[in-house]
Structures are given as structure tokens and as C-alpha cells.
């Protein structure tokens, strides 16, 4: 893998290709690469998943700890999304204090998950006002071949679906040697994901490879879920410098329900 940035000529060629609806791997502009999910990345995690979209790979783990509720919400547990852009995933990622991308990724995933309603924080109370469960989702990209945000969110949702609540001992601490029989209470039919649209010139595409992503000039990440048959947008973040037009956004609103259903359908077989 190269650390070399995108050249002007490749960017121009990709622009021409996208205008003609072509991509190097033969996909359509709105097609996802094959997605694979596997579980049990770590038997020490309360839940974990590994997601591959093409060669992009992200692993996500869930840990649950006992903590205090926030003072203004004594009847709710907490959710935190964290992790690291591991330098192993790309020649672009470096060790050291997190750069913007590293900070942004968990925050995007957090908002998509939190507002989807998949997790009811009220069900995480152990003793009201004193002790609650804190669900911590940690995201680790292992190989960056583009579209890490979408892969990470699918991973977070998948890991939550497999999460088991640890067993507490008499003193109120966690006994890791007792096998848990209680799954985390998850709304199964809500499957939050992020669909990120990328733009180069006038073309809008989904699921870019790293080569394509580096040529793109703008992106919008939409957090989406489905409530009782109704699609909901739970979060949105536009990134990079180019602007999206009104008609771009309206097209996305038309596309999102179809794409969400298409991807959800493909992922069903993993659960």
C-alpha cells in the first residue's frame, strides 16, 4: 500500500469514469462491495464483530462496566463509543495523539447508534440513582480500503446484537468466570447503519475504495434506521470541502430507503 496522495491525472480520470457510471472494479456508482460479518473476535468482550467491506476491515468490541449514572439522568445507563484509528490499517494513520479522523469516527458511529433507539438506556439500570451499566463500544479499523465509517457502524450494530450482560457477584462486581445468560436488550428490528455518500465533480457514489475516496471532494454520512417499517434519518455529517447541491440531497433522500433495505437484506444471513 502506498502513502502517495492522489495525482491530478488519476482524479481527472476517475471524474470522467464516474460521469460515465464506470468504476475500476466494474461496480455501479451506488453498489456496495461484498460485505461479510463474523463474530467472537474476542472471548473477553461482552460482544464483538468483524466487518469486511471488500478489503476494508473493522473490528468492534463491546465491554460493559458498572458505573454511576449521570446526575441529571439517574434512571438511565450510558453509552460511549470510542476506539482508535490503528496505524496498522493504513500508511496514512500515525501513532500519537489522535488526528481529526480518529476523533470523528467514533462520534459519527455514536450518534447513529444512539438516536436509532436500538438501545434503551433505561433498561441498563441496576440500582436507580446509584448503579447503572455503561456500554462501551470500541472501534478498531484493521485495514482501510475506503468507507471505514459505514463498515464501523455495521460492526457496532452487529457487536451490540451479540452482547451478553455480564454476571454480577454478591458484592456488585463483575464475575467474568460465570457465563452470562442475559443478552443485552436490543431492539432487533432496528438495524442502524451509516450510508456515506461521496462526491467527485458532479458524480455521487457509495462505498468507494481508498483510491476512489482520496479523489473525492466531499462526503455526507447519514445515520439511518427503520422504525416499524418507517425509515428514519438519525444523524448526518457533511465532511470535506466541496458543497452538495439541493438536488444532490433530495436524490439521497430518495435513494436512502432503497439502499438501506438492500444492505439490511444482505446482512440478514449473518444473524
Amino acid at each position, binding site marked *: *500500500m502506498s*502513502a502517495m496522495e492522489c495525482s491530478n491525472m488519476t482524479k481527472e480520470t476517475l471524474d470522467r469514469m464516474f460521469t460515465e457510471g464506470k468504476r475500476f472494479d466494474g461496480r455501479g456508482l451506488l453498489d456496495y462491495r461484498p460485505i461479510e460479518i463474523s463474530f467472537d*473476535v*474476542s*472471548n*473477553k*468482550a*461482552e460482544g*464483538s464483530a468483524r466487518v469486511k467491506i471488500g*478489503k476494508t*476491515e473493522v*473490528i468492534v*468490541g*463491546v*465491554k460493559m*462496566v458498572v458505573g454511576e449514572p449521570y446526575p441529571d439522568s439517574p434512571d438511565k445507563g450510558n453509552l460511549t463509543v*470510542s*476506539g*482508535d484509528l*490503528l*496505524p*496498522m*490499517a*493504513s*500508511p496514512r494513520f500515525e*501513532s500519537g495523539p489522535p488526528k481529526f479522523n480518529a476523533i470523528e469516527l467514533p462520534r459519527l458511529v455514536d450518534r447513529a447508534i444512539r438516536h436509532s433507539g436500538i438501545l434503551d438506556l433505561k433498561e441498563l439500570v441496576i440500582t436507580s440513582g446509584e448503579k447503572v451499566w455503561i456500554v*462501551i463500544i*470500541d472501534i*478498531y479499523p*484493521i*485495514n*482501510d*480500503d475506503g468507507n471505514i465509517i459505514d463498515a464501523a457502524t455495521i460492526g457496532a450494530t452487529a457487536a451490540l446484537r451479540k452482547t451478553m450482560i455480564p454476571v454480577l457477584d454478591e458484592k456488585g462486581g*463483575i464475575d*467474568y468466570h460465570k457465563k452470562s445468560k442475559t443478552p443485552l436488550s436490543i431492539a432487533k428490528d432496528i438495524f442502524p447503519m451509516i450510508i456515506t455518500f461521496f462526491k467527485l465533480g458532479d458524480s455521487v457514489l457509495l462505498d468507494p475504495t*481508498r483510491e476512489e475516496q482520496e479523489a473525492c471532494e466531499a462526503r455526507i454520512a447519514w445515520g439511518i434506521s427503520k422504525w416499524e417499517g418507517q425509515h428514519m434519518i438519525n444523524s448526518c455529517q457533511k465532511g470535506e470541502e466541496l458543497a452538495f447541491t439541493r438536488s444532490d440531497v433530495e436524490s439521497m433522500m430518495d435513494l436512502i430507503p432503497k439502499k438501506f433495505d438492500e444492505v439490511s437484506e444482505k446482512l440478514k444471513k449473518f444473524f
Partner: protein
Amino acid sequence: MQKTHKMTNFKRPSGRTLTEMRKMYAKVGVVPNADGSAMFAFGDTVAIAAVYGPRQLHPQHMQDPGTGILRVNYDLLSFSVYERKKPGPSRRSQEISKVTEWALSPVLDLKEFPNTVIDVQVYILQADAGTRTAGINAASLALAHAGVPMKDLVCSISVGKLDKNLVVDLDKATDFPIAKIASTNEYTLLQLDGKIQPGVVKEILGLADKACEEIYEVQKKALKEAIEQ
């Protein structure tokens, strides 16, 4: 004088005999972006390593005009252990990064790459004793996979005492992690925690040698399989 070692069919809680190692698994090329990468597992302990380099070293004042530099970063993923580990380096991970570097350096000759760095990233996905040894085995494979000039592979195993018996590849807290250059009798990592008689140390090294022979075969197979599809 009692003998403190018995090479009998004594079985440990896990069901293994004293010299039986956990099942090993190794695969190369697990991180396509890296110049070289590998996964190595001892039973439930799983390590992955990725190598980038030789590549430019910043900041410039860290460069060595006489040779390339090996830089290892080892860490546990937060959910690899029961008590969640906060992302970010800890003192333990910094120590292990350094001993891993020392374990690998003797087989590398980086003089033909002055002013560069070879970055080795090692992460533990699932920790169940022997994490640093799994890490060294994965890193050694990843360096080879990256085509870095290497005299030999480095193999690492933890040995120690369980009650009065000498054991190989401990289930519980590691007593004596060792790493050696595969085909020579040179040890590149020796660490110890516990109580052990000097005479017993010699025997332990013998056990380690045998274990490392098995590890070398696993590593060799992983490298060859990567190419002969």
C-alpha cells in the same frame, strides 16, 4: 535432594501435558495495506502484526544516517481482556514494545536503509496468557512477509513452573517468556517473574528450544502457504 521436575503424563487443568503447547495458528497477509502482516495464535491468545517500511522517518532528528531503525508498537485492544483497557499506550505496553524490539533486532540488518524506519504494529485481539510471545511470533512473520532482510525467524514461547513441574506455554500468568533465533542457540528475549533455581533454568531453556522448533514449523508453513496458492 528432591527432583523438582517430572516429565510424566501429569495433566494440567486445561488437559494438556506439561510439554504440550496450545494449538497454534498462523496466517500471513491479514492486513493487505501493509508491506507485510501476520496473525499468530496460541490457543485463545491472538496477536496480529503489520509492518510498514522501510519508510521515511519523521521527525528528521530521529533518523540514523548509518542504519534504518526498527520501531515496535505493541498494545492490547480494549476488549482483548476482561477488564476493559482504555485505548492508548500503557506502561506495560511500552515495556513490551521495547522488549519486542530487542527480541527482533538481532536478526535484522538495516544498514542498507539509512535514515528510514521499519514500523511494526502489534495488537492483541484476545489475551489469554503469552501475549508478548504471540506478538513476537506474529511480528517475526510480518517482517519476513515484508521482505525485510532477515537472517532467521524469531520464535517465542513462555515456559515456567506450575507447582513443582516445568511447563511449556503457560495458561495463566506467564512466568518466563523466551524468544530465540530459530536455528541458533541465541536468545533474544528472556524475562522472568517468580522463583526458580539456577539449575532448573538450564532445563527450562531445553524445553523452550523444543517448543520453538514447533513454532518455527508453523511460521514457515504460513509464509509458504501465502505464495503457493
